[in-house]
């Protein structure tokens, strides 16, 4: 009997605790506008002009809108990366410039939730338009290259809301202070482009110096590619009392038009960003 009572009270206490957690955890729902800035670094190799990988160091900024509902998440994001691509080989350095404009729309539907809705799993689709402009004067008439990629992806995301309890702490073991109760949203996601449409120079870059403007995009073609890359992101956001959030994120993506493509394009971005997310209602 004693054992039954213990089990009963344990279950009851767990229920009470869970109820308390549900009550005290903030609801992450509504409309949000976020602004993130950071550093984007990665690799890029465009075999139209060079068989060598350039390392990119780009300033990153994005602005996004999110609608988080009970069952759905909708997100529209515009991101821009601007900076340099550099290569050092045989004591010679080569520097080019790169600008990326990335627009994507993401829709996710909740698959299941657990732990009193603290953890939610979503599955959905993403549409993306990615434009990269690269300029490398060492390539003379082929200095300027523009690529445009449209992706249709399937996306998975998991959201986890958790709480860090109030705690007495010591700074450097000397100064006592109290860490206040904090709430966080941990998000991790991955998206796989199912079909990508690469619009890029088919064989050579026509250049821009000895023909009139009409001819610059001759030689461009649109080629589809199945499963051409991968993108993942993880972020942790501290939820403030007014519903706004401070977000630190890391995201990574790579894409290629395929090893069999005549002039392969390969690129990746590792993006570290810090941002603010404003709850608008």
């Amino acid at each position, binding site marked *: 009997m004693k054992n039954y009572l213990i089990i009963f009270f344990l279950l009851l206490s767990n229920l009470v605790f869970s109820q308390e957690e549900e009550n005290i955890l903030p609801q992450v729902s509504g409309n949000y506008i976020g602004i993130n800035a950071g550093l984007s670094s990665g*690799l890029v*190799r465009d075999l*139209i*002009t*060079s*068989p*060598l*990988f350039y390392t990119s160091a780009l300033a990153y900024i994005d602005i996004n809108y999110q609608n988080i509902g009970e069952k759905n998440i909708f997100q529209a994001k515009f991101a821009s990366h601007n900076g340099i691509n550099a*290569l050092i*080989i*045989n004591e*010679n350095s*080569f520097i080019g410039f790169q600008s990326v404009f990335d627009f994507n729309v993401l829709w996710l539907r909740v698959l299941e939730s657990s*732990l009193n809705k603290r*953890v939610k799993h979503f599955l959905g689709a993403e549409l993306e338009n990615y434009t990269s402009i690269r300029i490398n004067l*060492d*390539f*003379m*008439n*082929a*200095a300027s290259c523009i690529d445009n990629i449209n992706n249709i992806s399937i996306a998975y995301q*998991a959201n*986890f809301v*958790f709480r860090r309890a109030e705690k007495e702490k010591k700074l450097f073991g000397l100064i006592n202070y109290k860490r206040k109760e904090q709430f966080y949203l*941990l998000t*991790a996601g*991955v998206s796989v482009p199912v079909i990508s449409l690469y619009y890029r120079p*088919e*064989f*050579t*870059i*026509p*250049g821009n*110096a*000895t*023909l*009139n403007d*009409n*001819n610059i995009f*001759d*030689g461009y073609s649109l080629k589809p590619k199945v499963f051409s*890359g*991968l993108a*993942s992101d*993880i972020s942790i956001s501290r939820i403030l009392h007014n519903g706004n959030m401070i977000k630190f994120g*890391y995201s*990574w993506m*790579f894409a*290629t038009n395929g*090893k069999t493509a*005549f002039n392969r394009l*390969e690129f*990746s971005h590792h993006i570290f960003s810090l941002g603010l997310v404003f709850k608008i209602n």
Partner: protein
Amino acid sequence: MKIKIFTLASIVLLSIFSSCEKIAFDKKADTKPIATFNYLWEQVNQKYVYLEYKNVDWDSIYIVYRPMIRNDIGEDSLFLILGNMLNELRDGHVNLISAFNKSRYDITMLGAVNINPRLIKEKYLGENYYSTGGFAHNFIRDGEIAYIRYSSFGDSQITEYELDYIMEKYANTKGMIIDIRQNGGGYATNVFTLLSRFTFSDTKIYETQIKKGLGQDNFTILEDVYVKANDKKKYNKKLAVLIDRGSYSASSFFAVSTYAYDNIFLVGDYSGGGLGLPNGGQLPNGWTYRMSITRTMAVDGKNYENGVAPDYRVLLNPNAYSSFSDNIIEFAADKLLEN
């Protein structure tokens, strides 16, 4: 605990995904001389437009040059061999560029220099010639002819103001000479800007196409290139354009475009060619190169890559300076004053 599992799982997943990048990107590039040679040879084989036109057997070039390359060869020697191999293309738009050298095929050496700059300055431009942008100009033949020396399409972009000034100044002449001898080219946009002052209705000046794939005849469709008429000041008399072997690239584009105009004629030697747009690239060892990847067809349907033919072939008299007369300018001026 759940947080830890969730975080751990996320990190593991990200690590796995990140390693996908390494699998997808084959980062090992062979930068040794043999790989560099093979890469360059292959690029030319695939992308260079004039192998057939110039009757170059690129496979036999491989057989000749490949045995010269070993992986322990010095940079200088490698550069020399690759440069010589590229010069087999006989194309001024083909270069190999390293930090210590630039290979070139000097097209101007194919013909005599058809101009004496000192004579031009002393007799035709005179002491008080005008310098408007890249143009040096003055009246000749007692003010009946405008003489304009344009020595480079690459010094600057021609402005409408410069052309307005020149058109205004020489509006009452009976003819104009534009001298582009030894003009090695530059901005082709200047070709359109300059020609627009002699264009009264949209004029097709040539057709162009771009190499788009493997195979010697794999090109985009020929596309018409036009000079658009505008409402700027124009010159409506006859125009003589002076050319020689040193008139290359944009100068050849200008020269070949004149075939589309009834009131413009070419005087001098064949131009140097260079009607293929050069495309740049990089080799595995970091050196860069360029080569022609487009071709141009004149309005008569012919390819003048080996040199745009003058309407009147006149070579400079070897005694031009001592006789104090440029017989090419004099010929052009006489033609302009005919009728």
